[in-house]
């Protein structure tokens, strides 16, 4: 599996072959608070880099989930729809959102590594 990369919209992505797994970061869940609703893209649909590909809602507000790369949705994580609290518990592990068959692996080059993201998250949350 590839190194974990991060987007400015607070998604994480890992790549295995040409299938990417995408979720939202721990930092994002801390900003959102208790997540009580998740909506995922439809299997078989195509999503475009930086386009919306889902929604999460906390008790306070709704937020869009964006996809950091383009591709076809090949799998979605129904368990987080059934129990959205899982997203707070294990955001960067078991609570992944969707898997994409990616179109263009070079899209990952524009994303941040862990160190860069942590710095970005710290700066933008102040």
């Amino acid at each position, binding site marked *: 599996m590839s190194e974990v990369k991060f987007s400015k919209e607070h998604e994480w992505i890992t790549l295995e072959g040409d299938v990417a797994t995408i979720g939202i970061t721990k930092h994002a869940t801390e900003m959102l608070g*208790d997540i*009580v609703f998740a*909506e995922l893209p439809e299997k078989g649909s195509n999503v475009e880099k930086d386009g919306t590909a889902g929604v999460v809602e906390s*008790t*306070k*507000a709704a937020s869009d989930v964006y996809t950091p790369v383009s591709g076809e949705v090949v799998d979605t994580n129904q368990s987080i729809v059934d129990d*959205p609290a899982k997203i707070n518990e294990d955001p960067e592990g078991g609570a992944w959102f969707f898997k994409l068959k990616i179109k263009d692996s070079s899209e990952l080059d524009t994303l941040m590594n862990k160190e860069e993201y942590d710095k970005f998250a710290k700066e933008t949350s102040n």
Partner: protein
Amino acid sequence: MEIKKTSLNKLHQSNNAKFVEFAGYEMPIQYSKGIIEEHKFTRSNSGIFDVSHMGQLFIYGDESLTEELEKIFPLDLKNLKENCSKYSFLMNEDAGIYDDLIITKIEDGYLIILNAACKDKDFEILSNLLGSKFKMNLDNNRSLIAIQGPKSVEILNSIVNGVDQLNFMTGNWFDSNNQKLFVTRSGYTGEDGFEISISNDKAEKLVENLIEKGAQLIGLGARDTLRLEAGLCLYGHELDINKTPVEANLRWAISKSRLSNGGFIGSKKIMNQMQDGARQIRVGIKPEGRVIAREKTKIFDDTDKQIGEITSGTFGPSVNGPIAMGYVDKEFSKVDTKILLEVRGKKHPANVCALPFYKKNYVKGVN
């Protein structure tokens, strides 16, 4: 304008509050445990809420004040006993609501608790209506602390002895550490609890004592989910200047004895609406799935006709599902009516339901 802070601001900070601006005040939206934990703790134990941003308006006067206030509020104030409270509204001539409030008869006049965002305007309106006949004090030197939840009576009584003898919607002055507190048995969470009016310099110490006895600080986020589960209105959402108490389904708050003769501001409109009904009415709404319908969500019938709008919507932690309130055309206001909520372009089925979503635990009769 500089953001205002309550006397508990430092205490909020040391308890890791996340702050938001609310009605010009820096207020805690939540602490480290988060809204759901705070909500559940209040329902099972005892939560402390800083509501010092709300207005505490003391108006001093005798029977002539009561007469003047009856020209303003739809209440039978002549028969309101000392230390008893009523929920009411300040309205315009069209019965549009300037503010909703709690009014308590005290020894030398009345204490009115006002919403933070409305209090200055309310003061102006009431000053104009009452003229200079009565001394009025929108008291900034007092904090207001609510303690809510089933363990609150035991916790507060161990510090302020005698509060356990108060019935729901009554209050009294109490002495605690040589300090005069005005305590009412009331609140806005659907739980048994109290609101404590205390001078600013003593507020922090009191809250620290309450925390020592096992109560916890709760933010405005959980206050909102708690009041929504209890089916209670929030000014600026369910209530505003374009809504009347009849439309808001709050006719229970209008004293029956005042309906025959009127004589209060807005009475004509209220009496007409009581007879003919209102075009739209506030209802409880439960989405069938998990989707949350927020404020401004449009409500449709099954023919695609818009029949209303959501005024508050969230996830109810004790109900364990999405809940909402909103206004619908009156022919759709019956419990169990099927409606559709448009969220992100899709229509989701929902049902009109009885309020509250969560059953209240108020203490009606101690004595």
